[in-house]
């Protein structure tokens, strides 16, 4: 049973234990604290079940899913243009990104899964960007596919100049317009001086330690890392590179030595310089600066770099996400590029698979969220437009690049297929007719099967509903063959399957929506019965456990008490001691904790030591 309809069941042993632990005086409270049923209102429960059936969830599962699977599995497999040499259908979907991968087996189940996995949001935003960002090793830019480097680094493209320069701003922030001449450089922790300024006492003049503000992670390094990523453009790198976390105050000497390198390289360079010094060789000025830098400074530098890298990465990811629309087109172009290697047949297969996916997705969305509200439109026409618009946009980005890349190839294939199928065209007509007869027979057999089902499995209304749907499955081929008057050559079969499926999908959806026999009410009643039978059963069982154990406890307590009572009463009459019996009685009644005096010696002590005894 669904969690929301559950009623906690009382275990016999638990109730027994709870009551056994209760003293006679606690009984009312203990009985009250045992819940026989939760406080959930039955009206709320029934309302929730009704709501379950208001949504299209069951329609999608019971109607759309089998339809799609059978369409793909039996329909598309018959279409020659979608079969490769091995007779396999060969398209699959990349999970998560909404993209299409080629050369895998295509089945109805795979498509259905892809439809469920798909959403425009997912496709258009994060998933794509994240996947591309995660995979830096891939060269996404088609124009640079063959080269290792992402084009030549031009500093100007990544850095603001003049007043907007981040490094200049950082320096100005420290020194301002005043007469401050030195600052502790962040990396080395050394006193470092303004390049041109000298104060009244002459400090700063000719001093070796000039300070500079510069990027921790060099812009060139960012260019190498992100420049080739399709979802990242130069403006994003520019913004992220100038992020304040990436600007540090550093002495001129170290900055020159560091240049565009990262910390790992700088450490190596420093090691080499130190070794050189130990050998007594003469050092260059950069090498000298490195040798002069302390180990602590290097550690600080490393920490600073790690932090800057994290910040830049986060910043760029954010920018990439925010600008996904700008980059989506580029992604599509890239896929087109990848598809250069595809054969025409493969491209067509991919296109068909994508088309089916997106079309069924729209139908599913209509059923689940409503035709209009699914796209947040008020009028039917606006909703239709919105739906077509987003479908076209998707297909344009997904399929068009592929088709464009290999247009020649496709045309050749189509022409070839057309001539190949021409002689078959006339025999095809006969075949089609035979198919219809076969379908008709099939439908009639189905109908008999439905009618023969016993009434406890299917209500008359459900039978009627199923018959209507069988009837539709006979009608649609006729309908689609009317719609397809043009001989489309190799496309005819394909168009027939797709159109046929879409038409029957829509018809069945409409029939289901209309729910002529109100089978929804049947299924809903079934569910209502199921839920309440469970709940009633549960409550009755709990009441039973409660009743039985409570009664038993009362009897036990009464017996125990009566025995004690008789013992005490007899002892009083027979002039026998009662002090132990009365202590036992207090224990039994649950007041044992308050009884401190348990023998006469202690009592005597109590009397002797207290002049006044207060109870």
């Amino acid at each position, binding site marked *: 049973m669904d969690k929301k309809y559950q009623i906690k069941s009382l275990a016999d042993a638990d109730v027994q234990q709870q009551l056994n632990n209760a003293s006679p005086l606690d009984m009312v409270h203990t009985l009250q604290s045992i819940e026989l049923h939760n406080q959930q209102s039955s009206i709320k429960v029934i309302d929730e079940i009704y709501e379950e059936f208001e949504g299209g969830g069951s329609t999608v599962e019971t109607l759309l899913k089998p339809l799609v699977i059978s369409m793909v599995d039996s329909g598309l497999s018959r279409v020659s243009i979608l079969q490769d040499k091995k007779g396999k259908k060969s398209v699959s979907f990349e999970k998560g990104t909404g993209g299409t991968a080629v050369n895998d087996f295509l089945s109805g189940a795979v498509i259905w899964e892809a439809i469920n996995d798909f959403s425009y949001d997912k496709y258009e935003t994060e998933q794509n960007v994240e996947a591309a960002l995660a995979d830096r090793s891939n060269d996404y830019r088609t124009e640079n596919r063959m080269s290792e480097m992402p084009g030549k680094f031009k500093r100007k493209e990544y850095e603001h100049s003049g007043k907007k320069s981040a490094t200049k701003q950082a320096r100005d922030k420290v020194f301002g317009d005043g007469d401050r001449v030195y600052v502790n450089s962040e990396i080395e922790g050394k006193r470092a001086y303004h390049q041109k300024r000298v104060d009244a006492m002459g400090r700063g003049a000719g001093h070796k330690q000039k300070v500079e503000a510069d990027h921790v992670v060099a812009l060139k390094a960012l260019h190498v890392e992100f420049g080739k990523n399709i979802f990242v453009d130069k403006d994003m790198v520019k913004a992220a590179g100038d992020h304040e976390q990436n600007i540090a105050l550093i002495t001129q000497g170290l900055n020159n030595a560091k240049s565009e390198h990262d910390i790992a390289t700088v450490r190596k360079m420093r090691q080499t310089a130190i070794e050189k010094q130990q050998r007594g060789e003469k050092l260059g000025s950069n090498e000298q600066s490195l040798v002069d830098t302390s180990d602590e400074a290097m550690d600080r530098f490393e920490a600073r770099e790690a932090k800057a890298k994290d910040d830049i990465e986060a910043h760029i990811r954010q920018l990439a996400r925010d600008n996904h629309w700008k980059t989506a087109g580029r992604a599509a172009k890239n896929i087109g590029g990848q598809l250069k290697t595809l054969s025409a047949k493969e491209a067509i297969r991919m296109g068909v698979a994508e088309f089916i996916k997106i079309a069924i997705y729209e139908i599913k969305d209509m059923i689940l969220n409503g035709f209009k509200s699914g796209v947040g439109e008020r009028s039917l026409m606006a909703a239709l437009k919105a739906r077509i618009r987003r479908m076209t946009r998707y297909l344009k980005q997904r399929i068009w690049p592929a088709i464009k890349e290999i247009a020649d190839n496709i045309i050749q294939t189509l022409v070839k297929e057309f001539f190949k199928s021409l002689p078959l065209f006339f025999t095809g007509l006969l075949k089609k007719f035979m198919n219809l007869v076969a379908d008709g027979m099939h439908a009639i057999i189905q109908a008999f099967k439905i009618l023969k089902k016993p009434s406890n499995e299917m209500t008359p209304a459900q039978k009627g509903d199923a018959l209507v749907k069988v009837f539709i499955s006979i009608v649609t081929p006729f309908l689609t063959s009317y719609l397809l008057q043009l001989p489309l050559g190799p496309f005819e079969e394909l168009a027939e399957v797709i159109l046929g499926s879409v038409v029957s999908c829509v018809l069945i959806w409409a029939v289901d929506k209309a729910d002529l026999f109100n089978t929804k009410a049947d299924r809903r009643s079934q569910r209502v019965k199921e839920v*309440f039978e469970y709940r009633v059963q549960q409550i009755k069982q709990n009441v039973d456990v409660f009743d039985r154990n409570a009664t038993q406890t009362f009897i036990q307590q009464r017996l125990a008490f009566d025995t004690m009572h008789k013992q005490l009463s007899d002892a009083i009459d027979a002039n026998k001691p009662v002090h132990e019996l009365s202590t036992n*009685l207090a224990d039994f009644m649950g007041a044992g904790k308050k009884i401190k005096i348990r023998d006469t010696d202690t009592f005597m002590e109590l009397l002797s030591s207290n002049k006044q005894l207060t109870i």
Partner: protein
Amino acid sequence: MGLWSSFKKGVKSVCGTITGKKKAEQAKEKFAELEREFKKRNKAYSEFVEFKTSEIAKQVQVINELKMQTFSGAFPEFLNVANRLHNVSIRGKPILDAVAIPEKMIHTPEAVRSKQDILTIDFDDLSTKQKVVGVLTFGISTRKAAKESLKRAEDEEQRLKEEYAKMDATQVKLKHTLTALKEIAHYYRSIIELYGKTVKRLSHGIAAQQVSHIAFSGQFVGKVDFRTLPTRQLEDFMALYNMTILLKEMASRQYLSMPTESRPELELDKKDMDLTELAKANPQQFGMAA
């Protein structure tokens, strides 16, 4: 029956099937049946609850009286005897139980929902829109609505079963609550009785002691020295001391209302209840021989 009338009846019955009128009537009948059934059950339930509630109130009253009695009868008797041995007083006063039964304990049944909620179509009162749509769809719309009504009525029946089960649960709980209170009253009464008997036994014991003391020393002493007390009397004194603690505990417990709902501690009289003074001032009232 004439041919014409049977023909008319036949047509009517076919029409009833096509438009769904038959089903709508079934739904109506079902709905009426549900209402009848609920009314019947709910009446029995309310009566039961009312009866048990008043019984519970009575028992609470009984327990409250026992609480009072403990302090007005049993304790003064004991103090009267005990003070011949030692200076003894009892602090506090009885805390009475509120009669109110916790609301959570009694399930409030959710009645059959309104006619509009269940019956989506009424052929005796069709709106113009229903008529027009019904004709245009060859009765499909009305038939559908009729079926919907019937199913809703059937669903309501299922829901009511839960209500009845919950009513039963409340009844069982009330039944056992009453039993528990009756048991408490019984235990209470018995303990007071035993207490009284023990007080008497101790009283006789001390009197005998006093008589022998006077005979021996020739003078009357206010208090009997507990150190010279025979073991049996000392044991009885101790038994009564402990039973007083038990009875006091019983008199300050809240049996029906949950501890959280009990009245605030503030109302408790913290002052010593020195009943010895009271008993001396008005011995008759406390049933003591002067």
